[in-house]
């Protein structure tokens, strides 16, 4: 199931990002679908969220738009963190504050990864890229991720796909209550 969720998440994220590829800010784009990575991590676990975001960004969105290449490494790592971190650190998906907070921090780290890599590769200036990524991702993730999680959580739980309730997670999570 993990692989299937990664595949579906990657396609959704890749297509969602690619759909708004025409809103370009230098070598990055404004992407309203950025919330998918954080939401996927929170709903299906950090590894699923991280892998889906990394594959979706680099192998689908970048390939479709022709941006696949030198800058992709920073995007791969940054997007992985954006999906991984909220999944790892949001304990209760019903509370919007930790979701917004960790999504915001994950977006900041994503910007640092992309900006840092572009600076290392001498493609662009660190702060220019960082600020551009933050401007694109932070508002979207802070606002849309809690909304998406709130709307999707009942459906995910109903399908028995919520990662903290999957078999084998009970021992890891201890006696954490069900989100429903």
């Amino acid at each position: 199931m993990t692989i299937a969720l990664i595949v579906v998440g990657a396609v959704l994220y890749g297509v969602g990002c690619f759909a708004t590829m025409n809103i370009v800010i230098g070598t990055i784009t404004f992407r309203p679908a950025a919330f998918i990575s954080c939401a996927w991590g929170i709903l299906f676990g950090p590894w699923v969220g991280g892998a889906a975001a990394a594959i979706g960004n680099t192998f689908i969105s970048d390939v479709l738009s022709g941006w696949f290449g030198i800058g992709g490494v920073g995007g791969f790592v940054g997007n992985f963190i954006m999906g991984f971190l909220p999944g790892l650190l949001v304990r209760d998906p019903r509370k919007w504050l930790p979701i917004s907070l960790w999504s915001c921090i994950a977006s900041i780290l994503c910007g640092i990864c992309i900006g840092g890599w572009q600076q290392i590769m001498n493609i662009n200036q660190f702060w220019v890229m960082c600020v551009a990524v933050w401007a694109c991702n932070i508002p979207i993730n802070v606002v849309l991720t809690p909304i998406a999680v709130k709307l999707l959580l009942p459906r995910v739980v109903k399908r028995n796909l919520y990662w903290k309730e999957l078999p084998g997670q009970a021992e890891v999570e201890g006696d954490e209550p069900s989100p429903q």
Partner: protein
Amino acid sequence: MGVLTMMEAAKRDSCIHRLNPLSKMIFCICMIAIPIITINPYVSLILLAVLWILPLPAKLQDIFYPTMIKLYPTMLILLLIIWPFFYPHGEHVLVHFGVIHITLEGLFFAVAQALRIAVAITGCMYFVMVTEIIDLSSVLGRALQKVGISYTAPFMITTSFKFLPEFLGTYSTISESFRARAFQLDKGSLLQRLKNFIPLFIPLIDTSLGKAQNIASAMLLRAYGSKKKRTYYTVYSFGIGDLLFVLMSLALVAFAVWGKVKVLGGFDLHI
């Protein structure tokens, strides 16, 4: 989704398309390595000229050239604008106002940066056009399996690409059904349009979860993961054409190294 149509149209029968995906991947790696090796604009210009000839044997001239002409401005304009502000050296001052210090050398450096990135973009776009990603994942999976690495990662990439048209179809169906109920997705300001897309995303994700369960069931039924090694239907050979293509890629890298060492054209700008 014009790009998908373009990519589909780019999959033709030519001597380049028939090459082993691994040799095309080596070419792509070389195209990524060259801009890391040097920013010399004379090297970049010569390499760009070579890259613009490569669509001819691939019979891609009607797709490749218009795509690149559209792609270059969006990718390179910011580099051309930003870099002169951050280039700290140069004797020929053009603008000096407060912290803003723009020199002629800075402008030249920006052009060199843009050309360097153009090489990477062009090479990677060519690679994407002449390579079926599913073939590449398959051959990569096979190669990784030989050195004891699981085929799961290439499998995920392959499956993602296989499901891409299906997801686009679902997205299209959902958006059409919204429009049929007089819901105007493209109406209003940017913020309003973003809000319009929220009710569209929820059924899309919900439908996708159903698809994920179907994929998982199909994998389970076919005993995915029960054996450490999997078999492959297609066998990709490595022929003389592949050898020549790899040698050409390595020759381009060697040229870039030579251009850097020899300071081709006297270009010696750096941060």
